Each structure stands twice: as C-alpha cells, then as structure tokens.
C-alpha cells in the first residue's frame, strides 16, 4: 500500500507541475537595499531579483563609485516554470554623503529592463547625520497609498499584553476581513537619539501561501536598523485564527526630530486554508496572480538628550546597563615600547554613531590616536551593541605608572538621568630601555696595566649644592643691559671731549689774538706783549710778575715740551735785548722777531700741551 502511494506521488508531482500553467510570462526586475541610511562602517546589501527570465544572464550594475563591492552571490530557482533569479551584492561605502544607485539594467532578448534608482545616505561613523526629510516624504506618500486598513470596528486588545503587543493586536484587529495582511509597531514612539527601540513586522495569514514569497524589509529614514530575530506564532483575532511570521529589528534615531519606518512588503501566491492537510499542501499547485501586502508605516519622534547635567564623558550613548572595561596587552614593558590599550563598551543602544572616547591626560606617555570599531550582535531577541576603542601608548621613561580610570557616560531613558561608568585603574611597570643601554659605545674594556682596568663608563653623580653662577661679579656686570653700558661710555667720551675742547678752544683764541697783534707789531714791545698774552692764555703763566727762569720752570711744569721752552727762552731773551738795547738796533729785527714769535706760538698750539 505504502509502495503504491509513493509511486502515485512520484507520478503525480511531475504531472501536476507540468500541467500548471505559467501565468507569469512577463519579466519583472526589482532592486532593493537592506537600508538607505548607513555609516561608513556599515555593509549595504543590494538585492536584484529577476522573475520570469530563464537562462544564463546577469543584470548590468550601474557605475558605483561610492561603493566597493566585495561579495556577490547568485541563486536561481524554478517553481512551476516560474524562474526567479536573485543576485545579491554586499557593498561598503567609500565616502560620506548622499549617493544614488542608478538603474540596474537587464538585457533579455530584445528588451531592456531597468529598475528605479535608489537613494542612499552615508554618514560618518561618529557623526550625527543631517535630516533625511526627503526620504521621509517619499516614504510617507507610498504608505498613504498602500496602507489601507479595514474600516471595520476593531476588537480591543487584551489588557495584559505589553504595549507593542497591544498595538500589534489592535492593528491586526482592523484587518480581520482580510486573509493576508501585515502590521508593524514599535516599542516606543518617542525614543531619545541612539536609544534602541524594537520594531516588529508581522505577516498574518489565515490561508497558506506558496514558498518563495519575497519579503522586503521596511525602508527607514533618519533611523538605523539592525535585524534581531525572526519568529512564528498564532493568534486568534476577533475569533478568526491566524498564523503569523514576525521579523524583529532594533531601530534607533540618529538626529532629533521626525523619523519614519516605511512599509515592509511580501509578494505571495495564496495556497489555501491554514488548516489544509499536509497531503493537500504537498500537491497544491501554484495558481493565481502574485499578491502584495504591505505593512503600515510607523512615525517616530526622536528626542534629543537633555543638556542639563550632561557629563563631559558623554559621547552619545543612550540605554541602560552599559558596561566598560579596559585592558593593557602587557603589564611590564621597557621605556619606548608600545603598549596596546583596549577599552570595550557594551550595551543595548546604537553605539555606531557615538563619538570616539577621549582619553585622560597620561603624563609620561606618548598617546596615539584612538581607533574605534562598533558593531552589534543579536542576543536572546535583543540586540547587544559594542564599541571597541584601541590606542597605543608609549611610556617615555621608566617607573611605575598607573593608567587612571577612564570615564564613559550614557543617558538612561528609564530614569532620564546620565550615568557614568569607569574602568579600573591599571598598573604598568616600565623598566629602563635596554636598547639605550646596549646602544652605548663605552669603548673596549682594556687592561691598562698597573692594576687598573677600565670596566665601563657612566654619567657622573648628582650635584648636591646649587651653583648660583649669577652671584659672581662678572655675571652681575654681564646682566647689565649692553645698550645702557654703551650709552654711558659714549656719554663719558662726550664729556671728555667737551673738557678737552674747552682748553683747546682757549688756546686757539689766544693764538688768533696774538697773530692779530703781531700783524701790526712795529716794535719789539708789541711782539713781547703778544707772546706774553698767548703764554698766559695757553699755559696760565703770568710773564709780567716772573723772571725768565721762573717762566721757563712754569712752562715745563705745565707740560710744554722742552724744545719749545728752549725756543721760548731764546726768543724772550732776544726780545728783552731788543727792547732794552740802544736805539740803532731797534727796528732792524722786529719783523724777524715777530715771525719767530708767530712760529713758536703755532708750534705751541699744535704740540705744546696743554
């Protein structure tokens, strides 16, 4: 009996699949991305689906200068002569900003198929992105068109359900006249920036549908979204039994203001009643047009974190139960060797858009830039985020150091307060650099004889007293300003010259007067008077009251050179002789005496000090 049944099954399955008409003669080309807002560190999955085309073909991607494609995969399936080819591309952004994935083309036969362009916004990993208002509007329009809940009076959700479950129930209750529908709800519609909120998208079905029903995740604007988990269940709504498939995501707002979760879609081909037997399900045929259902949109209001009491160590994390730890890869190093310092933060919120940690001042260390890496891991239906900060610190000198506690703050939305967590202080022992010691060339350790052997060389010992080199007289003098010293020297010189000039000018004046007298000297008396007046003015010697011997002695005493004194003595004697000699002698040598007197005075002026 069992053999016959198996044989019948083997015969019927191919017959039924061949007999099933291929209702999709037209080719559809669709392209979708898993997210439209992402950071530089995120991956973007581009899915290109070709339905209805058989054979070996590849859609033509447009030029994508803003992305690096580092993985691609292709899967092809044929169900009832309906071929579905899915091409997946994993890409990472190369630059920040808005970019567009242009139309993807497929040349199939004589026809060229094209997809719609997809706008993508890429933000810096640690920067808050700008508003994505345009994206929100577009998404809103679509949802207004597509999401048409039933006008029937919905049943109230049971009171004991959690808020998100209640909303899902209430939304589902509006669709009870439909066999297939989708609803979406979030756990909190007014979250803070970076606060993780659960988004649940449920596909309710009262009848079965064929597999390979493509599901498109909801589009998002001003939000980050991470897939968390998938579940199935059943629920009776308004007395009608439904099964549902649930997709859970963690979403978080990136800037304050409005944000929106767009529609998620499922394209399915209905099969029959949920309660259809296993046998019937196996032999059901794919029939009818593919149907599309869409979930409702969800609007969120992202709130900024309060400014009041915001700690300096707050870098943007929001959530509760964060933890921080820090490790050094070594506890003992030599001076100048690098030590890796790793600080890890774990918690529930979105850490990708939080700023990088600023390390406290580490005296005695050269600290390199902090490099961070953020990610998230689904864990028991929740998303656990982590951010790892890595830096290299290099101790400059030896000693025992303590890396102080590193603070990190987050905002707890449940208490609406900032909380600060700290790492434990870490000890690091730094020994003197062996490279510095071995690199030293002390010369050859030689035996110099006489019982003396050089073993090595070291720096000399400390100075136990202060030198105070500035206390010496020369140093004190040297501290004087150079300009003032030079100015004083110049002033001194000027005074000296002024004094010198006074005496010189007096001598010059006396010479001029004497010369004038000599010009009109007709008698020896006049010549003697002129010479006497000059000697008195130049040397301060009064000839009238002194004998010749006394005059000569006075002149010598005043510094007049001896040869000039000698000449003066001779001239003075001749003048005396001429003045007191007989008459016939007079007048013969007056001119000569006047000339000699003029010459003597000239020489006295030139070289006869003072």
């Amino acid at each position, binding site marked *: 009996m069992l053999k016959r049944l198996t044989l019948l099954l083997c015969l019927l399955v191919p017959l039924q699949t061949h007999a099933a008409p291929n209702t999709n003669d037209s080719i559809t080309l669709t392209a979708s991305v898993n997210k439209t807002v992402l950071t530089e560190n995120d991956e973007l999955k581009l899915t290109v689906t070709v339905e209805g085309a058989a054979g070996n073909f590849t859609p033509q991607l447009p030029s994508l200068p803003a992305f690096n494609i580092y993985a691609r995969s292709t899967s092809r399936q044929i169900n009832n002569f309906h071929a579905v080819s899915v091409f997946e591309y994993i890409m990472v952004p190369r630059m920040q900003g808005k970019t567009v994935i242009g139309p993807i083309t497929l040349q199939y036969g004589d026809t060229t198929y094209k997809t719609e362009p997809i706008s993508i916004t890429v933000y810096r990993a640690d920067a808050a992105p700008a508003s994505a208002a345009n994206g929100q509007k577009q998404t809103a329009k679509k949802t207004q068109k597509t999401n048409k809940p039933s006008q029937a009076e919905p049943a109230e959700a049971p009171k004991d359900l959690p808020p998100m479950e209640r909303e899902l129930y209430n939304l589902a209750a509006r669709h009870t006249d439909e066999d297939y529908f989708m609803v979406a709800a979030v756990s909190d519609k007014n979250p803070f920036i970076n606060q993780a909120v659960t988004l649940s998208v449920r596909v309710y079905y009262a009848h079965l549908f064929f597999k390979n029903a493509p599901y498109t995740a909801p589009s998002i604007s001003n939000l980050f979204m991470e897939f968390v988990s998938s579940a199935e269940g059943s629920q009776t709504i308004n007395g009608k039994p439904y099964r549902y498939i649930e997709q859970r995501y963690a979403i978080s707002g990136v800037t304050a203001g409005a944000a929106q979760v767009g529609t998620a879609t499922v394209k399915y081909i209905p099969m029959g009643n949920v309660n259809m037997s296993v046998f019937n399900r196996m032999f059901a045929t794919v029939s009818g047009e593919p149907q599309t259902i869409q979930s409702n949109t969800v609007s969120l209001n992202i709130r900024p974190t309060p400014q009041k009491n915001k700690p300096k160590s707050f870098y943007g994390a929001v959530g509760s139960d964060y933890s921080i730890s820090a490790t050094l890869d070594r506890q003992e190093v030599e001076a*100048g060797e690098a030590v890796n310092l790793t600080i890890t933060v774990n918690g529930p919120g979105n850490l990708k858009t939080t700023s990088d940690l600023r390390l406290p001042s580490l005296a005695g260390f050269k600290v390199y830039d902090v490099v961070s890496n953020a990610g998230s891991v689904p864990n028991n239906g929740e998303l656990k985020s982590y951010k790892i900060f890595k830096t290299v610190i290099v101790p400059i000198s030896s000693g025992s150091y303590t890396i102080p506690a590193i603070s990190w703050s987050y905002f707890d939305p449940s208490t609406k307060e900032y909380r600060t967590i700290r790492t434990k202080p870490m000890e690091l022992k730094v020994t003197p650099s062996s490279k510095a010691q071995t690199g030293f060339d002390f010369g050859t350790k030689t035996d110099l004889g006489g019982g003396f052997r050089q073993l090595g060389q070291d720096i000399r010992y400390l*100075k136990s007293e202060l030198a105070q080199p500035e206390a010496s007289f020369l140093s004190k003098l040297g501290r004087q300003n150079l300009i003032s010293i030079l100015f004083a020297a110049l002033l001194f010189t000027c005074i000296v010259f002024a004094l010198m000039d006074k005496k010189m000018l007096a001598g010059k004046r006396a010479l001029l007067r004497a010369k004038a007298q000599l010009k009109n000297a007709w008698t020896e008396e006049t010549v003697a008077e002129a010479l006497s007046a000059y000697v008195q003015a130049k040397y301060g010697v009064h000839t009238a009251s002194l004998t010749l011997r006394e005059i000569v002695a006075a002149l010598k005493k005043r510094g007049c050179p001896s040869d000039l004194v000698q000449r003066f003595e001779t001239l003075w004697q001749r003048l005396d002789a001429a003045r007191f000699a007989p008459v016939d002698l007079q007048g013969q040598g007056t001119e000569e005496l006047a000339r000699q007197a003029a010459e003597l005075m000239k020489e006295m002026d030139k070289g006869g000090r003072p």
Partner: protein
Amino acid sequence: MKKIIFATCLALAAAFSASAADLQNAETLYREGKFAAALGEYEDLLDSYPNEPHLYYNIGNCYFKMGSVGLAVANYYRAFRLDPRDEDIRHNLTLALQNSGERFVPAGMPEILHKVFFSLRSGELKGCLFIILWLFCTLASIWLIKRRLGRIALAALAILAVLGAWYAGRAKWDNKPLAVVAAPVAELRSGPAASFPASASVAQGRLLMLQDEKDNWYDVVVKSEGLQGWIQAENIEKI
C-alpha cells in the same frame, strides 16, 4: 630697621635651608633608584631657581637613568649653557650625546679650543667685555687729553675686538634654535602633516636645528646627517 634686616636674613636662611633639604631628599630618592620621584623634586626646585645649572644637570641624570636619553640631552644642554666650565656637565652631555650617535665637540675642532671657547659663562664674558670697553674708553680719553698711555689704549682695543668677536660667537651659539628628539623614534616627513610621506626616522637623542614652525609641526635639520624635514612638535624637546 634692625628688626627688618634680621627678619630678612632669617627668611633667606629659611629659604636656603628648605632648598638644601629638598636637594637632600631628591638625592636620597635618586640613590634608592626612585628616579621619577627624584625628578619631580628637582623640577619643583626649578620653580624657585630657574637658572640653576646644577638642577638641570640633576634632572638630566634622572632622565638618563630612566632611559630617556633625549630628555637627558636636553637638560644637560641647558645646564651647559648656564655653566659651560663645569666638567661634570660636559662629561655627562658628551656621554649622553655619544649614546644617541651625536658628537658634542664638532668634528675637526680640537677639544682644547672647544674648552677655551666655553671657558667663560655668557654672563662672565659679557661682564669682561664691559670692563674692557670701559678700560679702553678711559685709556683713549687719557691719550686724547694727555697724549699718554697710547699703546695701552691700543692693546685694550685689540682685546676689546677679540672679546667682542668671542661674545658674538657665544651669543650665536646660545641662541641657536636647538631641539632634541624626545620620543623613542620620530618620523621626518616632507610636509607639516601626518599625511605627507615619511622620509626618515630619527632616533631619540638626535640634535635638531629648528627652521620653521607650522601647525604644531617643526621644519628641522638633523644636525649630524644634514637631513631636512618636518617633525611633530610632541616628538621633540626644545632646548
């Protein structure tokens, strides 16, 4: 008045005894091998005695013992500028520079000439210059007025010229914009940013001549090799 003088003397004595105690404390720490703690003591004393060569010398010793040859060289250099006659400072500076592959006495220069050039402190040299200048002024005045001591005045002028040239040379050496590599290894780049390619790596303790400064980067010439490039300010210690 007597009370004021007494109080001043007392305060001065207290200050000196405090610094002596601090020096003693720092030396004890150094002997015990607690070089970082001794360094802290000496650096505190620097606030009170900013131009004290022995403090810079001791700080240099602490850094040398801690393995920071670059910072040791910088501090020995400061001490040497303040007291170039001190043999211990000269010895330790020479040793520290040798350790980092540098020469203290320039190649080709006899050491005796180097010692003569640095036989006087800058302040002393300046003081001598002033004395000789005044002596010359006085002698020149005597010669001008009395026509005496002319030869001595000329000799004074010659000494003044030599001292002037010596002082100018020392002033140039003292004011050289020098720095030393303080980081274990520093990279020399072709421009004042980390984005420029590195042309050489310079070891700790190497002497650098500063040429220019831009955005926390210095244009330097490595004295021993003559290489020029940009180095990050945090990697060097200005002398």
